[in-house]
């Protein structure tokens, strides 16, 4: 059907508006509806039923299924723009997790730009700006290998399907594990998550494991002298958790070691100052 002059100017106007709103893909359907002579209310409803609209605002169907309200095109587009800004602001590589499909997943789960900011900051801290040991700990704990390991790690953090508190806990665990690795000590997911769960921070882990790395070999030698053993777990408990049993053990070993030196010294002094023969 050929458009009349009035219809053509309406179509041109629609094209300009829809393009300026960032939804030029709706122009062909809008043009058809104008030619059909539908009224304003009908055009909006009909436009919302088109394939192009459903594809462009794909998260809305998922939101409605999840009991969330559908977003207006403006809300939708504004949220996408906010997501993109957050990703740029946090230094996420261009083209990384900023596709419409990625945003669809975020919008479908009602992730706010503030939440995405928090996730992106976490991901950046762990994978882009933080120590390599932290990344190694993450890969060791939560998987990740090969050239795409970083991408997958970032995606796992940005994925709104993973609860934010869980993501934060894993980040802390990776930082605790990273602290151990940085000190040349072994680490495990269970212990790192346990310490992170007790609120041990990455900085505390670096300092604590540094101390443990210095103390542990000495204390193990001392313990060996007295027929005992000291392990990394006891050191971690004493250092990070102020475990009284572990601390007392460390203290006792230290005192025993000190006592041993005192007795040695006394023996040496007596040997030098008192006669040792014929006194008994």
């Amino acid at each position, binding site marked *: 059907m050929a458009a009349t002059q009035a219809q053509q100017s309406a179509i041109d106007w629609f094209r300009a508006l829809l393009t300026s*709103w960032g939804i030029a893909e709706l122009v062909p359907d809008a043009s058809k509806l104008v030619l059909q002579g539908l009224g304003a209310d009908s055009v909006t409803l009909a436009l919302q039923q088109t394939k192009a609209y459903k594809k462009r605002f794909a998260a809305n169907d998922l939101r409605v299924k999840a009991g969330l309200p559908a977003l207006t095109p403006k809300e939708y587009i504004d949220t996408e723009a906010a997501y993109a800004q957050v990703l740029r602001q946090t230094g996420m590589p261009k083209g990384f997790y900023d596709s419409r499909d990625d945003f669809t997943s975020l919008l479908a789960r009602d992730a706010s730009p503030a939440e995405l900011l928090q996730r992106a900051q976490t991901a950046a801290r762990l994978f882009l700006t933080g120590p390599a040991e932290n990344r190694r700990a993450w890969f060791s704990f939560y998987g990740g290998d090969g050239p795409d390991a970083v991408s997958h790690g970032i995606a796992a953090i940005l994925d709104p399907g993973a609860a934010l508190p869980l993501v934060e806990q894993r980040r802390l665990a990776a930082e605790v594990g990273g602290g151990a690795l940085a000190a040349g000590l072994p680490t495990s997911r269970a212990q790192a998550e346990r310490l992170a769960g007790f609120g041990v921070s990455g900085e505390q882990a670096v300092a604590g494991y540094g101390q443990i790395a210095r103390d542990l070999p000495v204390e193990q030698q001392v313990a060996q002298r007295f027929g005992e053993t000291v392990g990394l777990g006891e050191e971690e408990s004493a250092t990070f958790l102020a475990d009284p049993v572990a601390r007392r053990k460390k203290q006792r070993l230290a005192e025993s070691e000190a006592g041993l030196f005192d007795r040695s010294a006394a023996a040496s002094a007596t040997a030098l100052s008192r006669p040792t023969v014929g006194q008994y």
Partner: protein
Amino acid sequence: MDIAAALKQYGFVGSLANSIPELKRILTRAAAGSWSADEFSRAVQDSRWWKNSADAVKQYQILKVTKPGEFKAQRDALVAKARTLAAEMGVGLGEGRGSALGHLVDMAQLHGWDEATLRQSIGHQLHGARATFGGQAGEVQQQIRALYYDMGVPYSSYTVNLSVRHVLEGRGTVAGVQASVAAAAKSRYPALAAQIDAGHTVRQVADPYIQAKAQLLEVAPDTVTLQDATVRKALTWVDTGTGHHTLMPLWQYEQQVKADPKWQRTKNARDDYSALAHQVGRDFGFVT
């Protein structure tokens, strides 16, 4: 006794008998038999003419024979009256020999018509299937045309003019025509039956639709008639939900009017499209 003597002896009846064949034969026999005046009178009264002719006809013939001056004056008066009535009624009777006027006056004088009968006979002379009448016929013609027009019932000039003739003849009334047009309208627009019964015309009921179309297409309202296809569709709409005849909702009707290519050329269309884009912008949240 010869005929001339008989005519003298029998007076005006004899003169009358001379002008009527049956009576003339009696007159001839009376002259030959030298009938007395009474015998002649009895023979005339026994004639078929006397027995079968109406009093008015007999008086007409008697007057014509016995008082030609009065007869003529009476006829002239009838001619004048017939002319006046015909002019009032808007019926052309013609003039001169062989005209309807002469014939009607003859008949009126012969049968002693009263004015109502004369009017009726003049009305019968209304001819012309497509003619536009003047006078009373014109008024009635206008009224009847208006009835059809206001009720949205198609009509032909023949039908209208026939009804006009019936009204002028006294065989029908405008009210009667109105009733039959109303019945036709109810059959044509079942949804409007109650309103028609209540005295509304179809045109009155259709006025919002007519005005809406006129406004949307930016034309004069009187150019949109009840015969307009869109208006007729609105008045004969069937609600698919109930299956009943009802008036089409105005919003739906307006959509149908806008489907007319003429609407696309109006300022309304341009304004509408502008409002359309604005509304979509508002629905989408881009326009506050």
